[in-house]
């Protein structure tokens, strides 16, 4: 691990709407080293995806986000475009990020051509390599997105992200729409890519089991704030914050003993709007 982190977020605040709108993300700080996975876990409305959008430069924010020592709020648009090739993303629904009328080969090649990473003549060969790296075959490059299953489409989205050799991939619920057996394969692929290529992940998910399996460190978000931050083992084996404990208790595990575990949280209080109303 390098002494200076790959990504450093400090005092990040993001508001949807101007002025004194309730922040969706409030004073969030976390850091990510090269080759590391930090999990960001929380329920709907906790602000985890908003953190991802800010990191990717898709949302205006207050606070500072530093990527490899550069303050993202201050870099020029040209520089930001260069940083983007190092900072990739995959989302929950790969079908929404793939163009239905373009072959997957062209779509995997496009970011490499935009960032001038391969010459046009070498693109096809590189696409073939990438498809094989994610467990598909090179001949599939000529097919269209609808010809693939959900898990295969997510592999295509991963291949496209890999093409520009990123140091960090922001994964926002990358396996939430997949069947469990397919999810297990995609998670395994992401871990293997980390081992072989040293890619860091900011890994966002609502499924605590998935986050535990993937993450070195974990931040638990609740109502826009990080309420607990520590190594995966610390957070899941010895949770300190009452919300983390409630979240862990609520997880339904395939274990007959879970039948009678009691609940200790009021689910209506996990939305900032409800909390504001109840305070009013």
């Amino acid at each position, binding site marked *: 691990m390098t002494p200076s982190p790959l990504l450093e977020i400090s005092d990040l605040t993001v508001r949807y709407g101007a002025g004194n709108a309730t922040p969706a993300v409030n004073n969030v700080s976390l850091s990510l080293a090269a080759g590391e996975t930090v999990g960001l876990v929380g*329920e*709907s409305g906790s602000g985890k995806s908003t953190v991802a959008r800010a990191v990717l430069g898709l949302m205006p924010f207050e606070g500072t986000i530093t990527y490899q020592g550069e303050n993202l709020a201050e870099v020029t648009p040209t520089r930001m475009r260069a940083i983007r090739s190092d900072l990739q993303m995959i989302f929950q629904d790969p079908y929404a990020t793939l163009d239905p009328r373009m072959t997957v080969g062209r779509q995997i090649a496009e970011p490499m051509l935009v960032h001038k990473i391969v010459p046009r003549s070498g693109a096809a060969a590189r696409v073939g390599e990438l498809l094989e790296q994610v467990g598909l075959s090179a001949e599939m490059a000529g097919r269209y997105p609808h010809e693939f299953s*959900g898990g295969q489409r997510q592999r295509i989205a991963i291949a496209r992200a890999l093409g520009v050799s990123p140091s960090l991939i922001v994964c926002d619920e990358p396996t939430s729409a997949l*069947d*469990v*057996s397919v*999810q*297990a394969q995609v*998670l395994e692929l992401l*871990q293997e890519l*980390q*081992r072989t290529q040293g890619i860091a992940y900011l890994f966002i998910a*609502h*499924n*605590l*089991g*998935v986050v*535990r*399996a*993937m*993450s*070195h460190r974990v931040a638990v978000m609740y109502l826009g704030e990080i309420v607990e931050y520590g190594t*995966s*083992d610390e957070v*899941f084996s010895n949770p300190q914050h009452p919300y983390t404990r*409630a*979240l*862990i*208790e*609520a*997880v*339904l*595990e*395939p*274990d*007959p003993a*879970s*039948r009678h575990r009691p*609940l200790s*949280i009021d*689910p*209506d209080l*996990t*939305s900032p709007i*409800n909390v504001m109303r109840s305070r009013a």
Partner: protein
Amino acid sequence: MSDQPLLEIRDLSVRFSASAPPAVRGVSIRVEAGTRVGIIGESGSGKSVTAMSVLRLNDERIAHYGEESSITLDGRELLKAPLSAIQGVRGAQASMIFQDPMSVLNPVFRVGHQVRDVLVAHRPELRKTAKALVIESLDAVGIRNPAAVYRQYPHELSGGMRQRIMIAMAIASSPRLLIADEATSALDVTVQAAVLETIGALADDRGMAVLMITHDMGVVARFCDYVYVMYHGEVVESGAAADILTSPQHDYTKKLLASVPRLHGDQPRTA
């Protein structure tokens, strides 16, 4: 009559096209009165088609049931009955709830009126007292301040509350069987646990049986007494939920259980 189950699905086969393989093949499932039975499987396993067959909700212009197939509810054959007769079963003796309540609720009507309409459709004699009964049932499904929620529109409610409204509609005329098709899959974990608890409490209070269709072994563990595992249109294994979870026999069930990333117990990060 006493040893006859509430719901008996026998040798169910469903085919959507003469050239394609059947979506469901030779499925037999029993649900005794007042029990909680699960059907677990992944996408395309046939679990929803099986559930939809009970209330004849598959598109019958293209869905064809096998000659030998039979579904009986309280001893009454449903598969060969005319659709007009099924209309009297739907909502009255057996109800169904789905994953997405917004596809069930009408966005332009107050939720209380929508629940009331269901109640009055089945029990016209209750028209005068319907509002009070609906408010009572909103309270029973765990909605706080039911009188105010009665007047709200679907978009004003959270996902968990909409799911509770749909449950209130489903149980308005006290069915003996509730079919829940991935009813808690879109909810946050804390909300999911609370909604499952509500369904369980209602079932226990009213002696209502629940057929829970899910992809989630955690839901089976938390909710079901008995479970059927479906794969490629067939039931590959069935048994008491605790037995299936602790000692699965079929390879597919074993693989399914092994795929679930665990939170508790020893399964640290593998990389």
